[in-house]
């Protein structure tokens, strides 16, 4: 009995259904407002007819009193109707935003594949807002229809022929206007895209200001900006001309409709078929009806936009996860031994590797892509195509990826820092009583803090981009060490750090991770020296195992990967 709906429609209905009371209240109240607005020109006509024309002060005052009541009603319904529908709109956007973020952060992953962060952020803000806007558009549509129906009813009541003239004329003129301006609209949209480009280029040049200054390209950049700016100007003026023309067409057509109503109403009044007041009301209503008819077109656009946005949101929410959770639990007293059996993933082929609990292992890969593939398998961002990875004898496939990561931390080479202080970043996932000072020192982050204006309380901005590469790396490493996971895998943690500090960090990692399983995936000799054992990954296979000094002596591939 339930027809199959597209995922976008499901999102749309669920979002609106969750706020149905607010949407309903908004619709009723705003319909009341529109009915009131429609009554105003009618009441003006009645006041003129029965008060001014008849010279009856009592009648005039009576109609003015009625007008006051109508104003009161329309004002209050507008006030509370707008509040209800705006509240619904914001709440829906908020709920959808939370759902999108929740899906992106889900341990199973997969939502980001094929989507840039900026695009996902756009879906969580702009698309969520457009779907929410429907909660505003529906009451708007209700109000519009009420206005149209009320206006039509009054007109038909005044005079059937006159009502028919207006009711046929107004939509016909709007349709004509739409036909005339459609090519203009199309042109205007493409022109506006070009017009927006100037601001994009300017922002890009400012973002690259240091690079421009470094190569002395300020003048060249400026010439380029001028050319873009002129191009944008030309496009904008074409768009503005099209828009102005559209405006003029609508105005002229509206004026023609008024002329028709004036003439036919006047003839009816002259023939005594309607009163003067009816004529005035009819002219006022004809003017009034243009408004609701125009917003009808806007409601349509809002629906189309909301549908498209809901589809985009549904796609994110339904993105297939990269890995699926298993039901197994890790043993309570974890030893932290990893074993890889015949693992094949991306470039990796048949990797067999035992990492003993508490071992400090170095992994040197000749191909950075192989290193990345290995890292992805270790914290289940991906499952290997063949073979298994086990932690203390439990296959990772049988674990929930979130639970696994509470035990195994893979600290990426380009890990992001977050909004907050330097210390706040380091301590974000540390135990309450952790000795952060010791961790900072081990990662060389204490030196970073000393070089900053407010020390470890310095704010980190733009995902750590306010720090230099070397500073960021050390803070990220400190955070990874502070998390104090039973198994830690670090990837190239010191590429932007000077040699002396690097040696200190290597010693720090060894000291701090004593007795806990740690893997360093790197080609830095300073780090590999402190490892208990190093495996060399070449051509997707493990080709050698041994201490750094030994490998460096006997293996040419290792020497060229690590020491040149």
């Amino acid at each position, binding site marked *: 009995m339930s027809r199959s709906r597209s995922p976008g429609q499901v999102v749309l209905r669920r979002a609106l259904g969750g706020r149905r009371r607010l949407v309903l209240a908004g619709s009723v109240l705003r319909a009341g407002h529109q009915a009131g607005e429609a009554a*105003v020109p009618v009441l003006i006509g009645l006041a*003129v007819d029965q008060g*001014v024309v008849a*010279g009856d002060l009592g009648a005039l005052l009576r109609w003015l009193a009625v007008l*006051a009541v109508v104003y009161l009603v329309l004002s209050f319904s507008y006030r509370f109707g707008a*509040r209800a529908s705006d*509240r619904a709109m*914001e*709440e829906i956007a908020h709920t959808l935003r939370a759902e999108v973020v929740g899906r*992106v*952060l889900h341990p199973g992953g997969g939502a980001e594949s094929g989507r840039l*962060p*900026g695009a996902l952020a756009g879906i969580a*803000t702009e698309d969520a807002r457009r779907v929410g806007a429907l909660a505003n558009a529906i009451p708007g549509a209700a109000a519009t229809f009420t206005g149209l129906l009320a206006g039509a009813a009054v007109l038909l009541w005044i005079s059937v022929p006159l009502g028919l003239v207006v009711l046929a004329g107004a939509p016909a003129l709007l349709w004509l206007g739409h036909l005339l301006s459609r090519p203009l609209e199309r042109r205007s949209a493409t022109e506006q895209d070009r017009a927006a480009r100037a*601001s994009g280029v*300017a922002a890009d*040049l*400012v973002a690259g*200001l240091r*690079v*421009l*200054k*470094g190569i002395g390209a300020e003048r*060249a950049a400026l010439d380029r900006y001028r050319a873009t700016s002129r191009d944008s100007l030309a496009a904008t*003026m074409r768009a*503005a001309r099209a*828009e*102005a*023309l559209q405006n*003029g067409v*609508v*105005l002229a*057509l*509206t*004026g023609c409709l*008024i002329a028709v109503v*004036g*003439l036919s109403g*006047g*003839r009816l*009044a002259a023939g005594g078929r309607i009163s003067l007041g009816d*004529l*005035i009301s009819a*002219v006022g209503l004809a003017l009034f009806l243009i408004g609701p008819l125009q917003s009808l077109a806007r409601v349509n656009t809002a629906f189309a936009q909301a549908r498209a946005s809901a589809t985009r949101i549904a796609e994110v929410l339904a993105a297939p996860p990269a890995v699926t959770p298993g039901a197994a639990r890790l043993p309570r007293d974890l030893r932290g031994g990893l074993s890889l059996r015949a693992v094949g993933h991306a470039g990796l082929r048949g990797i067999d590797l035992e990492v003993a609990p508490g071992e400090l292992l170095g992994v040197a890969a000749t191909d*950075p892509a192989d290193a990345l593939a290995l890292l992805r398998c270790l914290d289940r961002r991906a499952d290997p195509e063949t073979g298994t990875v086990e932690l203390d004898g439990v296959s990772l496939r049988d674990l929930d990826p979130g639970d696994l*990561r509470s035990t195994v931390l893979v600290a990426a080479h380009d*890990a*992001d820092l*977050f*909004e907050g202080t330097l210390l706040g970043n380091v301590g974000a996932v540390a135990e309450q009583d952790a000795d952060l000072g010791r961790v900072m020192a081990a990662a060389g982050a204490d*030196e970073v803090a000393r070089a900053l*204006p407010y020390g470890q309380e310095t704010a980190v901005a733009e995902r750590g981009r306010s720090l230099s*590469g070397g500073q960021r790396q050390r803070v990220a490493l400190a955070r990874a060490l502070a998390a104090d996971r039973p198994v830690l895998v670090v990837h190239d943690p010191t*590429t*932007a750090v000077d*040699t002396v500090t690097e*040696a200190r960090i290597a010693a720090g990692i060894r000291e701090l991770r004593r007795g806990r399983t740690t893997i360093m995936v790197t080609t830095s000799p300073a780090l590999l020296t402190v490892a208990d054992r190093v495996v060399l990954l070449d051509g997707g296979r493990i080709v050698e195992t041994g201490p750094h*000094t030994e490998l*460096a002596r006997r293996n040419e591939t290792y020497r060229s990967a690590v020491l*040149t």
Partner: protein
Amino acid sequence: MTRDRGREPETAPPEGALPTASPARTRALVWELLRPRRGLATAGFSVMVGATAFGLLPQPLLGHIVDLVAEGRPATELTGPAVLLVLVALLQGGATALGLTLVSRLGETMLAALRERFVERALLLPQERVERAGSGDLTARVTGDVSRVAESVRNALPELARSLLAIVLTLGAMALLDWRFLVAALLAVPVQAHTARWYVRNAVPLYARQRVAAGAIQQRLLDTIGGAETVRAFRMEEEHAGRVANASRAAIELTMRGVRLVVGFYSRLHIAEYIGLAAVLFAGFLLVQDGSASIGTATAAALYFHSLFGPINNALVLLDDAQSALAGLARLAGVATLPPEPGTEPEAGREPGPEPRTVTVTDAGHAYEVGRPVLRGVDLVLRPGEQVALVGASGAGKSTLARIVAGVQRPSSGTVRLPAARPGARRAVVLVTQESHVFAGPLAEDLRLARPEADEEELCSALALVGALEWARALPAGLDTVVGEAGHRLTAAQVQQLALARLVLADPEVAVLDEATAEAGSAGARALERAAARAAEGRTALVVAHRLTQAATADRIVVMEDGRVAESGTHEELLAVGGRYAALWEAWSDTRATAE
């Protein structure tokens, strides 16, 4: 009403911040932009006045129809005014189209001139000035403020002008019908004026907070979504979802406050509408009673007043947009009217050295903040063709010295003498840092920033020299592939190769390379080092070296410690001395001792 209240007085900006122009200076700038376009401005304004005036004719014509009916004239006489109504509609439509075209041409050309001036000043600002202010400020102005001003030039300004004209002319027309209609209509003004003042007073600070809150959501979202891998790795999912939810919740509450404000605003305007309408109807009654106005005139007056609702509501709302655009304009004018500082032009203010092609730094000291010197009494001479490596711990002052030699930072004390640029080259010294940027657009255009006249062959040979030609050719559209934001994404190593290719194209006498290989990861670093060496070949070069193998091959090594030059000499000399460099080398080669 409440315009031009100077809500952004020239408060003392935080130290180093970019200036905001005073209202007087903003006005002067607008006038300066307007003056060459006086003719256009006059024409546009006149046509708009005409269009609005045509818009006022239908009401008396309709009133005339009412009068003809009231006088019991034959229906055929109604055709005249009806034809006139059509004519007026066509004239009004035509004049409006023309007037809007002229007004937007005026606004858009002024806007283009303003943004070009702004970008010119912004690009020529000394680097240190931008850094003191934070580049975020400049970015915010060039995106947020420019688009806010543009938005209002495009939409608010013509609409505001139209509404104000309609209000003024309609009130005038009512006065023409009978001055007493005007008096009646004006009864609504005190309520409207009070409402507008109340609204602006509350809305302006609220909207400022809303913008901040909207920015915070965006920031949090990018923070969290951009760092999703890290969030998951560290199991911070809940914390981050909570952060986003809090930011979103805060923004919602501010939005709802704004909504309550706006609906309150309209509610009060409804009161004003009623007062005015009742007064005009009542005035019509009295005037028709004593015979000084016809029924048609009273009808026209009521219709006039009813038609004022739209423009008045429009104008009052647009005032708010205009206020925010004025604030943006002041921030643009603040930069656009900065006098070009001495030293703003690249290469200016530094004396050419006595010996051609030699860089001489004498007794240079520098402090970014008073009391925290990062460089003290540095003397350094780079002889023609010499390759010098700069070595030292993080924070020793290497980057600052590199920036001073490159001329993007003026030292607090001491002098720098640079060689003149080679004929055909733009700059004598080029700096390549780890901070890289890919300019949005075709790859070839990015490269041509360094040498605008370069042909395809020159671009290719520069790319080939730094080992980038192969991948560049393999891009979807080769050198015409759009790169940068929203374009094809390049790897960190490719971005650095691109920076080196720009260096080759700029072809400077002196090259300064600061950690240009740091971001690539250790495997990529070696390839980049080779590319950097080739790019620096045949030039005087100062290289900030991380990996000591890079330093060991230099003609000379300068070791920095605590902002001073601690040692200087060749690799062998410094090892023989057994000082700081020797210790560094030992630490370095310890890890690779087994290699020998």
